């Protein structure tokens, strides 16, 4: 049985929205970082679904690049998080507020 592409897209949009909301409401930096990863993976799902729809392999290649970039971003991001923890001894975004918005 063939699953219609719309289902994949709805799932991808739902995952992306969950990621956005988690980014906005979560208070721990690590969790916020995880919600960004969730958003990226939602995009990957959309890419694969569209690649299947258009019978084009380029969409799947795009996913590989997204994964590579996400890994690079994670490496740098975690290093930055460590440097924040060293200077503040907390990972709560509400307490990382020396500079006000």
């Amino acid at each position, binding site marked *: 049985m063939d699953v219609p592409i719309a289902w994949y*897209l709805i799932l*991808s949009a739902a995952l*992306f929205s969950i*990621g956005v909301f988690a*980014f906005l409401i979560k208070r721990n*930096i690590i969790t*916020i*970082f995880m919600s*960004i990863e969730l*958003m*990226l993976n*939602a*995009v990957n799902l*959309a*890419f694969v*679904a*569209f*690649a299947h*729809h*258009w019978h*084009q392999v*380029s*969409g799947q*290649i*795009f996913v590989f*690049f*997204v994964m590579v*970039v996400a890994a*690079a*971003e994670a490496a*740098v*991001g975690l*290093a*930055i*998080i460590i*440097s*924040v923890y*060293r*200077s*503040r001894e907390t990972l709560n975004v509400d307490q*990382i507020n*020396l*500079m006000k*918005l």
Partner: protein
Amino acid sequence: MTEVSPVLRILPEVLLTLTGVLVMLLEPVIDIKASRKPLGFLAISGTLAAIAATGYQLQLPPGTAFFGSVQSDAFSAFFHFVICGIVLVTLLVSLDYFEGHTTYVGEYYALILFGAVGMMLMTSSVELLMIFISLEISSISTYILAGYRKRSATSPEASIKYFLLGSFATSFFLYGIALCFGATGSTNLFDIARGIASGASPLLLTVAFGMMLIGLGFKVSLAPFHVWTPDVYEGAPAPVVGLMSTAPKAAAFAVLLRICYGAYGTMTHLWMPLIWILAVLSMTIGNLGALTQRNVKRMLAYSSIAHAGYLLVAFTSLAALGIASAGFYTAAYAAMNVGAFAVLGYLSGFDEKRTNLIDYAGIARRHPVAAAALSVFLLSLIGIPFTAGFFGKFYVFTGALNSGNAWLAVLGLLNSGVAAFYYLRLLAQMYMLPAEPTLEPNTMRARPGFILGVAILVFAVFALGIFPNRTLSLARDAGATFTSHPNPVPQPQAEAIPQQ
């Protein structure tokens, strides 16, 4: 059709990458206590080589390479010159900034070079995959650079805020790319333009454009996506702020131009109102926000939001003229903003002793030359005649008037009037008030690198303000690439790499 080797199409980027790798390789070889300045000179010579390579690219016929993913043309060359210029001056200015304060100076030069590679690739990419990867190369380097004053409390905070909101924005941009791919079956800008012309799903395309606009809006700090800007600019080291408030923005604006005029060229009714609203919001919020700031770096951060708004006004004057005025404004803004942050970095030193407006009271008496240079940059930011800022604003607003956006021009001019107030307040602080006796005098001496960098910028500000024609004709050529090559230049057969 003459065949051009694909490597020549990305020659400046290749040179910068090689220099960056060389800097990284030499860094551990140098004695740990020794000065890192030779690495800085190496980085500077690499940047000069990249400028020369861009000049060489201008001689080549415009064309694509690597399966149509990068295109070197007058447009990419113009932005290459701007970005290389910014990087060159930033390197000159930071030669002594970090000396004695941190041991990671070698990596600093390498990161700036790698970031520049990303920014320059962004301007020459015509494939959304390439644009995404180069956007990430430039972003990841600047995330690290923002946190370079590791021991201070504010710098890591700036870094984490920039990182989190930057990656958040990237995911939006990426989702937009996915939807664009879904609508047209391709991620090549020319194929997307063709897909739009042949009636791809308008709903998907609209959402895709909105998503990409959100992503790029974060990167260039357009209101309402600007909230990270003041915090990051306050915490990051001043020379880095000069770099990241201009070079990545120039690159992101180049991408936006390629998407708006290249891919979505036939859907102006879709993006014109969006750009209009963002331009007005950015100008107004930026200028009103700057009025209330006590911290000079935050004030300039809000001013950079406003300037992003002025730049967007250029988008509304359609066709080649809009691209030309946007390009010119990027160059003008780069010269004055890098200069302002360079002088601020010099006056406040590595420890950022002078942060508030009040700390700049009477500084003209203690540092007359630095204060004079800062005044030139501030006057140019206001848009006084005979400075770069004047012609930048002049071309942008004339373009808006000519294309029937009179209201936008009026709102922009009103905003410039408001903006004059807070720049003049800093000027008055420097020249009119007596010096603050409590603040110990700055121990940092002006070094040749810094003097040369600021001299180049002052020269650029006046050159663009008095003889704008040369830069403007370059920008016109850049704008013309969109009208003369609506379709991709045919790819030379040689690069069709054997398939499987």
